[in-house]
């Protein structure tokens, strides 16, 4: 699992993101101001020409542009004055919200995974035991057949049913369990 980054690193990332958003919002504010400035003389012109409808339309658009400008001014002010506190607030909201939810979901999924894998492991153990039992039966049958019919002794070596985990045959993955952990589990399973 990826190690959790430090608060300082995350705050730094949030600060950079806020700074980027501030630039973008400022750019948009400048665009709004410019658009309002462009509209203003058009309204005056329309009013001067006696075009009441045209002047009203320009005025309506101007009002809308001013309202939008005020929103951007407010947003830029928040992004400019917020600084460290805003970065901390944003980070806290993210950590408390999506990050926690994400982790809760992961825990749920992993809980199911643990049960699934444990079931699979126990099933593999049972199968191993059943195979050993089958082998015993088979060996017994062969032995009886040989003995009763006077046939020659077995030439093949008996099968070793022990699950041998040794440092020499266990390759530990970077995020995988250690040799000791695997060895202990196999021991507990009686294999």
């Amino acid at each position, binding site marked *: 699992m990826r190690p959790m980054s430090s608060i300082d690193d995350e705050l730094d990332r949030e600060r950079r993101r806020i700074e980027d958003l501030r630039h*973008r919002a400022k750019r*948009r504010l400048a*665009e709004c101001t410019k658009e309002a400035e462009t509209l203003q003389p058009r309204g005056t012109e329309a009013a001067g020409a006696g075009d009441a409808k045209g002047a009203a339309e320009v005025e309506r658009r101007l009002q809308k542009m001013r309202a939008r400008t005020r929103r*951007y001014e407010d*947003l830029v002010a928040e992004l400019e004055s917020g600084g460290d506190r805003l970065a901390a607030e944003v980070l806290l909201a993210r950590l408390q*919200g999506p990050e926690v939810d994400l982790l809760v979901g992961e825990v749920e999924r992993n809980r199911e995974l643990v049960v699934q894998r444990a079931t699979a492991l126990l099933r593999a153990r049972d199968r191993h035991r059943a195979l050993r039992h089958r082998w015993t039966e088979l060996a017994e049958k062969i032995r009886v057949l040989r003995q009763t019919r006077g046939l020659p002794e077995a030439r093949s070596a008996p099968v070793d049913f022990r699950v041998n985990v040794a440092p020499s045959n266990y390759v530990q993955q970077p995020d995988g369990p250690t040799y000791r952990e695997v060895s202990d589990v196999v021991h507990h399973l009686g294999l």
Partner: protein
Amino acid sequence: MAAFICRHTWRSGSDAGKRCNLSPRMEDGFCVFHSELDEERPFPQDVVAVLEERARRGLSFEGFRLPDARLRRINLTGADLSGVDLSGTDLSLSQLMKSKLAKADLTNAFLFGANLQEADLSGSFLLGADLAEADLFGASLRDAEAFGADLRRANLAVADCSRADLSEATLSEANVNGANFTGAKLADAVLDGVDMSRAASKADLAAE
């Protein structure tokens, strides 16, 4: 004093058939979120936290009216906000990833820098909405009414804008890579710096 119970009865979700218990109370007997009055709503101070908590718990937003609410930086990821009145609402820098906003009223809403990746905005009303710099990657704007909306520098990559009305909308420098504009209206839309050849399908650019 008896606790106030809003007149709204939930029609869907886990609380279907039950009465809404949100507050504060409005003159018409509904809570501030369901009131049908046109007056300015006294949303509680912690409105953002209240809504975020509902979204996290997967509770319903059915019939909610949040006009002109200040919900800046709110996180409503995955929330079902279908049909909700969000006209004039400040949703700038909000997290609305995979949220369901079908038929939502977002007229004149302020969505600057909002994260709307894979959000369902089908049939929504976006007239005059400000979606500048918004991330609409993979979002559905199918049949959306976005006349005069501002989508400059928005990310519309692989978004479904089929049959959307984007007449007089501003899409300057928007990313439209792989976006679907089949049957979309873009008459008098501002398309400076938009490479429409990168869209998956073309739009109707002719004025009616």
